[in-house]
């Protein structure tokens, strides 16, 4: 008697992906989104007339090729413009500039250290090798290591075999990558501080760890596993902003018959006798479905949307123990003209790529230290792009938007609240960046500061964690989000999770959405639904 085969709560890119796959398989799907904009944290919003912000996520590289292929996304005008370079200005006026031009990059690194230039080639090869070896894990349903079920045993055997086929050296290298800190790992390869700092930065994005924290080398690889047109590691952004990605997936979903409703916040998931059968909106409207798929993080899903009695104390405890501490913020700027960096004056290719404020490992580590004790970094790490340089549609002619990812901004502040301190964070970011681009303050037309609190309030990300849960070793793979529940299913029958809180984790990948949908379809086929 259900109206729909499946209801997807949350039109983030994973929820939309799950909906698209289910719809494509012939299911009647309804997606319910709280906001007026679809896309979750992958959205484009025009908050200042004429200027488009990728409010939250700002780059893409990990978007699964199988999703692009299977949902035929290019048909809906998805175009990803590669970011070809990373520019790291230094306080002393020098800089580090790396790009897709290998020869030029080599010469540039050699300026700092000849040995590092040599090592860089070899390092790149190792990482690509490693990424290729580990990539299949992104598309894999994690086997349950404590179970005797044939399916799991087979999955474990396959996993074991995959590791064995890596060969000894690569296996050990992978084991080290999984457990080392990015600083320690990079110390074994390079000597140039600014190079190591810039590289280690990808190991700390979205984490509550510093470059010297064990477990950050792994995230280095996570971000290295992206591919665009078969070229590993390249990052890019979508023409029209990150919202394009969500729009395109939404279009694919609708094309297959899915219904998507915005401004339809879900209040409660309805459960009867341990089985989910519908949802209640904030308006009071009840909608029934045979399957409920939540694209929301597990804390919100289980601890806010479900009657506490329906879950065991043990499971609730596990969900409460799921670490989801946000450490990132965003500052989006509308600019009257381009910023002028002292380290590379004027207009140049460096403005068409990523700009990293990461002059040394100590700099990032100190930024992290402050956050540990409840303060935002006085001199934050920043990852910056100017999408309007390569995509003029993002701003009026001659003007620009600047997207600044900031770390660290801990959700839990020791003094004050985020609404009180939002602008102080914005000022800190602008002040710090102005040290490298002194004309910055003169050209700012508009500024948006998105704190972890804002990420929670507006975008539904508990504690502002951008990955719907920290990517620490105890919360990955068969332990994500919670031990024993790593296959998109939950203790409630017919209730599934499809967000980044599931394997393979965060980043705009759409992998979770796809894997969740496939598991749901599997259960349907076996008549379990």
């Amino acid at each position, binding site marked *: 008697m259900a109206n729909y085969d499946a209801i997807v709560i949350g039109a983030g890119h994973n929820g939309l992906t799950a909906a698209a796959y289910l719809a494509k398989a012939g299911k009647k799907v309804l997606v319910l989104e709280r906001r007026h904009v679809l896309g979750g944290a992958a959205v484009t919003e025009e908050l200042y007339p004429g200027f488009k912000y990728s409010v939250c996520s700002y780059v893409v590289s990990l978007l699964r090729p199988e999703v692009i292929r299977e949902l035929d996304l290019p048909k809906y005008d998805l175009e990803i413009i590669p970011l070809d370079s990373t520019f790291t200005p230094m306080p002393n006026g020098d800089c580090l500039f790396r790009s897709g031009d290998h020869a030029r990059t080599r010469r540039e690194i050699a300026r700092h250290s000849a040995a590092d230039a040599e090592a860089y080639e070899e390092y790149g090869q190792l990482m690509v090798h490693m990424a290729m070896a580990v990539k299949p894990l992104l598309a894999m349903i994690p086997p349950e*290591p404590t179970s005797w079920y044939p399916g799991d045993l087979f999955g474990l055997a396959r996993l074991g075999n995959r590791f064995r086929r890596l060969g000894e050296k690569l296996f*050990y290298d992978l*084991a080290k990558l999984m457990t*080392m800190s990015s600083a320690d790992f990079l110390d074994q390869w390079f000597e140039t501080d600014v190079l190591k700092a810039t590289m280690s930065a990808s190991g700390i994005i979205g984490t509550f760890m510093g470059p010297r924290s064990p477990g950050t080398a792994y995230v280095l690889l996570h971000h290295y596993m992206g591919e665009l047109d078969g070229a590993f590691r390249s990052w890019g952004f979508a023409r029209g902003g990150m919202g394009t990605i969500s729009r395109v997936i939404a279009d694919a979903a609708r094309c297959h018959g899915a219904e998507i409703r915005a401004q339809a916040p879900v209040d409660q998931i309805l459960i009867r006798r341990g089985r989910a059968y519908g949802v209640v909106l904030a308006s009071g409207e009840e909608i029934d479905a045979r399957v409920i798929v939540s694209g929301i993080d597990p804390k919100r899903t289980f601890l806010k949307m479900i009657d506490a009695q329906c879950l065991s104390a043990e499971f609730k405890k596990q969900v409460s123990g799921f*670490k989801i501490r946000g450490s990132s913020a965003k500052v989006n700027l509308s600019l009257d003209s381009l910023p002028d960096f002292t380290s590379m004056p004027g207009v140049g290719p460096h403005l068409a790529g990523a700009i990293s404020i990461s002059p040394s490992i100590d700099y990032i580590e100190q930024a992290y230290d402050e956050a*540990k004790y409840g303060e935002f970094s006085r001199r934050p790490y920043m990852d910056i792009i100017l999408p309007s340089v390569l995509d003029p549609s993002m701003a009026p002619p001659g003007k620009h938007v600047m997207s600044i990812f900031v770390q660290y901004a801990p959700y839990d502040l020791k003094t004050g609240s985020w609404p009180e301190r939002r602008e102080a964070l914005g000022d800190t970011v602008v002040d710090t960046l102005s040290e490298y681009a002194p004309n910055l303050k003169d050209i700012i037309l508009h500024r948006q500061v998105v704190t972890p609190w804002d990420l929670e309030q507006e975008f539904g990300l508990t504690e502002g964690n951008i990955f719907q849960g920290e990517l620490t070793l*105890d919360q990955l793979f*068969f332990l994500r989000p919670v031990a024993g529940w790593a296959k998109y299913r939950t203790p409630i029958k017919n209730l599934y999770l499809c967000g980044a809180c599931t394997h393979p984790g965060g980043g705009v990948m759409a992998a979770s959405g796809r894997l969740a949908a496939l598991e749901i379809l599997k259960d349907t086929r076996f008549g379990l639904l």
Partner: protein
Amino acid sequence: MANYDAIMIGAGHNGLVAAAYLAKAGKKILLLERRPIVGGIAVSEEIFPGYKIPTCAHLAGTFSKKIISDLELERHGLELLPLSPLLFAPAHEGSGLVIPRELPNAAQEIARHSKSDADRFQRFCELFKRLSEFLATLYQAPLPNKANLNQFHLAKFLELAWKFHRLGEKEMHDFLRILPMSIADLLNEWFESDLLKGALAGRAMLASFVGPRQQGTAFNFLHHQLGNSSGALPTAGFARGGIGRLTEALHDAAKSYGAEVRSGAEVTKIITAKGLVTGVVLKSGEEIRTERIVSSVDVKQTLLGLVEPTALDPHFLLQVKNIRSRGTVAKINLALDGLPTFSSGDQAALGGIIHIGPSLDYLERASDDAKYGRFSKRPFLEITIPSIADPSLAPAGKHVMSVWMQSAPYGLRESNWYAEREALGDAVLDTIEEYASGFLNRILHRQVLTPLDLEETYGLTQGHPYHAEMALDQIFFMRPIPGWSAYQTPINNLYLCGSGTHPGGGITGLPGYYAAREVLKNWRSKK
């Protein structure tokens, strides 16, 4: 012509254990020790007349009971004394936290700080006792051995899988999850009292480069529950007559099996030919030929210092160089004119571990300093006063105090350890004074061992008591080097058996024991 079946280098506790087992198996062993006394870091030295000071290590509760039994160490004079109380964590204000031996009393004490913590403490101890026992079982797992690639122990692997499953689903998940966690996250899940969390986390902190918030520290916590432990804290540790009695007993045991031990005999070179050991050269110039060498000296010093660089493949050498052993500890040894008076606890509380680190944040801040090449002015301190349980260690009414301090990084950025030794000592003693007013007046003698002193005195690279950091990427099949965790090296018949090998540091004796077993196994199947 080789008189000895094997020459062993380094008479630290692991070297002595290995020598004893090999001698017991009938092998003719010569053990060479650089210092005039044997014992490595587990020594008692009368550096102040009348006081028997544990100059380096001060607790040996983690020592393997099996080894004690196999080598009959009790017959040779080893008596491990129980800690009572287990721990005292002073506070700046209000009452400190005392954790007595008996669980009901412990619950009572903890309840003064948090009722819910008291309720959970027993369950915590029980769970961690089981998990650490499984870890000990896991340590026995055969590890990859590049020198002997054909070995695969299916039976052992299945046995382990079976033992793992015996934990039950929940505890299997707990184990997998807890192993890589940070001890701070783990303790925050269980407890609310800062003092309790700080006290428990301290057990994971000694010689750790990273603070309690970092991943891998929960593993360190589990590792330190080996031997005598309640699951949360060590329950024994002092040896009657001083910690040196452990190594003296080992020494006696080794000798009783026929091993020859020579102190004041420093090995300066290991000679090899065509990938095989041929002998050692001593500082005196004496050369002793042998077919087999077992070194408990730190891996880097053995392979980079004693062996000629041309004898090893450059790639292997690079891996050895990359072993991280960043020293972060210093030792302060004191003779006291009486017991200190802590504002937050009685003198009756001082018989076990005295832990200065009143919260997780305090410990984390103390570890931050090492990253920037400076020593902590608000350090984490692990203190014992062994003369309380064993008055024979000091003159009547007087006491011995042993203090491990963290962080004191080996590589100081702005200065050097010669210049900073006394400032370090002052910082430590001033910290104690904050909790025990009048303490400074009780000090009769003081010895400060900086990381540099620890390195020079005990042969520890960078003063690291575990030889190599016990980080997640330097344990199990990755210790000391991936693929080489079965105590062998690319040089035939050159073995390693110190703390830098599996399963690592902490005075367990296990590296020596497992290495000896490996040596004997290969002996039988020697070509």
